[in-house]
């Protein structure tokens, strides 16, 4: 960001390949010591984190917009696989689904009317008109919405009780996730961009929490905390059981001296890796192209001197809204990919520390404004985050080995996995202070 540190990029043109080699070595070491399954789990989630980080880098790195609601955009993207790929719940639409959609339409109409009145009327009439539109809209909405929701949630509540999806291929859900997140970003950006930078940070914190709250509580939509499981896999990822039942696959694995069960799990993860890798590569290519385009140069010019850019006739707020939506769309895409990988939607697992602030650490550590840096930072920080949970107790064990058995020792041992939170805080602070341009500085 604006704290420039020209001599940070030591190592010249070998710096990036070297750091990526270190990253690869870490993954390989994990494979050799703990196992390839574990290494691939980390890598796949690392790639998804890298995509989230790319999205955040567009907002923070290109434009200096502080988004503290990444968790919300990711979660909203994660809703897409449920809506697109799950089979529709029989009778849900006729029981109340259409009515719910009608209620949502009423809500939107009420907002539109309120906005229009806000523009047209003045003085006391304006306030009265807006409030009246909202109150009437709300009452109508609830009157239509509540009974419909009750009926939908009554359908086979143990395994359904929600609208279900469209039963379409899950790959379609990825762009849909991006669109959902971008729409939320539009709404939030419209209200809080153009004000103090802190206001966007506060407003996004709010939208993040609210999106997660909606996903946790609206059972008709995604079963809430009851979770949606069994989200179908995307083409071309096979199921392990099918592979194990395939004599050709089993023979090939045995030929390579690999246990067919282990082989099947590794195969599935490798295919996911390939799929995610393609998406990441495409995004990275596009992001690099955008960054180097006149549009990207203008974005950075605005970031570095907003006043001057505004004086040159650039509509700063409009540009910011664009990039904010674009970044959110990438986060939504990553969110949809993550739910596809997990095969289930568990709204209660969306924790801001993990899905907002950790992504922020990834971007800053990797190098704000540098796309390759975000990818590198994401995989490295994700690796550290996972491993630190295991290392914490090991280090603590060494530290307290001389202590006598007792409640304090037990407490310290139990608390050791939390050390990684401190590690992340320290990492963020150290990078911000001593190397504000990160591992791979922006050019």
């Amino acid at each position: 960001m604006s704290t420039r540190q020209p001599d940070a990029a030591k190592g010249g043109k070998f710096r990036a390949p070297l750091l990526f080699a270190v990253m690869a070595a870490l993954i390989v070491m994990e494979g050799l010591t703990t196992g390839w399954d574990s290494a691939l789990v980390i890598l796949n989630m690392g790639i998804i984190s890298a995509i989230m980080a790319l999205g955040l880098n567009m907002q923070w790195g290109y434009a200096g917009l502080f988004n503290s609601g990444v968790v919300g955009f990711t979660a909203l993207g994660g809703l897409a696989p449920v809506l697109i790929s799950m089979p529709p719940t029989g009778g849900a639409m006729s029981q109340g689904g259409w009515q719910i959609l009608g209620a949502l339409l009423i809500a939107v109409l009420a907002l539109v009317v309120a906005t229009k009145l806000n523009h047209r009327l003045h003085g006391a009439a304006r306030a009265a008109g807006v409030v009246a539109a909202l109150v009437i809209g709300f009452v109508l909405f609830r009157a239509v919405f509540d009974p419909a929701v009750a009926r939908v949630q009554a359908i086979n509540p143990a395994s359904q009780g929600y609208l279900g999806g469209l039963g379409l291929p899950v790959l379609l859900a990825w762009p849909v996730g991006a669109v959902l997140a971008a729409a939320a970003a539009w709404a939030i950006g419209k209200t809080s961009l153009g004000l103090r930078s802190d206001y966007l940070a506060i407003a996004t914190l709010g939208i993040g929490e609210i999106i997660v709250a909606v996903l946790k509580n609206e059972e008709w939509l995604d079963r809430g905390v009851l979770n949606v499981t069994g989200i179908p896999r995307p083409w071309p990822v096979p199921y392990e059981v099918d592979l194990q039942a395939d004599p050709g696959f089993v023979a090939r694995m045995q030929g390579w001296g690999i246990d067919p069960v282990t082989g099947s799990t590794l195969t599935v993860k490798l295919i996911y890796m390939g799929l995610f890798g393609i998406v990441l590569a495409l995004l990275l290519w596009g992001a690099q192209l955008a960054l180097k385009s006149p549009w990207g140069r203008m974005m950075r010019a605005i970031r570095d001197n907003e006043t001057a850019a505004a004086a040159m006739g650039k509509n700063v707020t409009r540009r910011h809204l664009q990039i904010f939506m674009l970044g959110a769309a990438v986060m939504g895409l990553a969110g949809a990919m993550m739910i596809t990988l997990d095969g289930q939607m568990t709204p209660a697992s969306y924790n801001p520390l993990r899905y907002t602030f950790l992504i922020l650490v990834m971007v800053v550590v990797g190098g704000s404004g540098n796309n390759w840096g975000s990818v590198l930072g994401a995989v490295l920080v994700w690796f550290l985050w996972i491993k630190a949970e295991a290392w914490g107790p090991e280090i603590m064990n060494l530290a307290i080995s001389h202590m006598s058995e007792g409640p304090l020792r037990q407490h310290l041992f139990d608390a050791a996995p939390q050390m990684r939170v401190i590690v992340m805080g320290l990492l963020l602070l150290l990078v911000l202070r001593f190397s504000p341009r990160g591992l791979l500085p922006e050019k």
Partner: protein
Amino acid sequence: MDILNAIVAILNYVIVPATTYGAQLALGALGVTLIYGILRFSNFAQGDTMAFGTAITIMVTWGLQSLGIGFGPLPTALLALPFGIAITCALLLGTDRVVYRYYRTVRAAPVILVMVSVGVMFLMNGITRILIGVDEIKFADGARFLISASEFKSWTGLTEPLAIRSTQAITVIVAGLLVWALFWFLAKTRTGKSMRAYADNEDLALLSGINPDRVVTVTWIIAGALATTAGVLYGLDKSFKAFSYFQLVLPIFAAAVVGGLGNPLGAIAGGFIVAYSEVAVTYAWKKVAGYLFPSWDTDSLLQLLSTDYKFAVSFTILIIVLLFKPTGLFKGKAY
């Protein structure tokens, strides 16, 4: 129509809890607004500062309890509070010395400081988790009620109860005293005035010989006292859980923005506005309606939003203020 019972129901389920919650939010928002006014950034670590201060206070409380020291009918935590404040202030001053001071000297942009405060948030969050864990902890002892429901019913003969928990009374009294002391300090003392001068016009304050280090030190001490007290009062009233303290950042920020960032009086007003709206919107008004309009039969709970969406209320207020009056109700700094 039974107006008396309706009023008591409103008092019991809306006014009393919202006043308590509002006092807690007001203290938190005061901390945010002071830091914003003087150090010029939105402190994302506020919730975790509250959690840290409360965790220390709980640990001291346990220590006092194990020594058999109590505070009579009052919660032991009030005895432990000064220790919690002292240690929290020490941590904040240490953080300022090691972390924030550098960014002041290089005059970093506010958004960089917000990012830095996220790092501090991580640190404090981690320290709190290691100190006291992630589970819910209840630490209120002493007398349970100032007015208990059954006492109230037998005194008044009303069907509707009114209970005031002692923690609710303590919250309002302690918060009131603290706010009074803070405003007295800011209005009457030389140091307090110098803080306001620094917030108002930093360059002119420096020109007048006001020592910025001293202003910043005092600000952190006050912020530590406010955050710890707010956290302990909230924990006494409800319970302590590190994550729910982190989540308090949203209503606290909303309160500070609604009142006008940088304006202490606004922070207090904002705290109560947010608290009253939150409680009123998530309360099921069916009972009150039953007293007022006995003939009106409805199976709706008359609850505008479920309590799961209480943060949506803070958020909505925040958005309304951003849309219509970005400087807040009491003039703050919006740009």
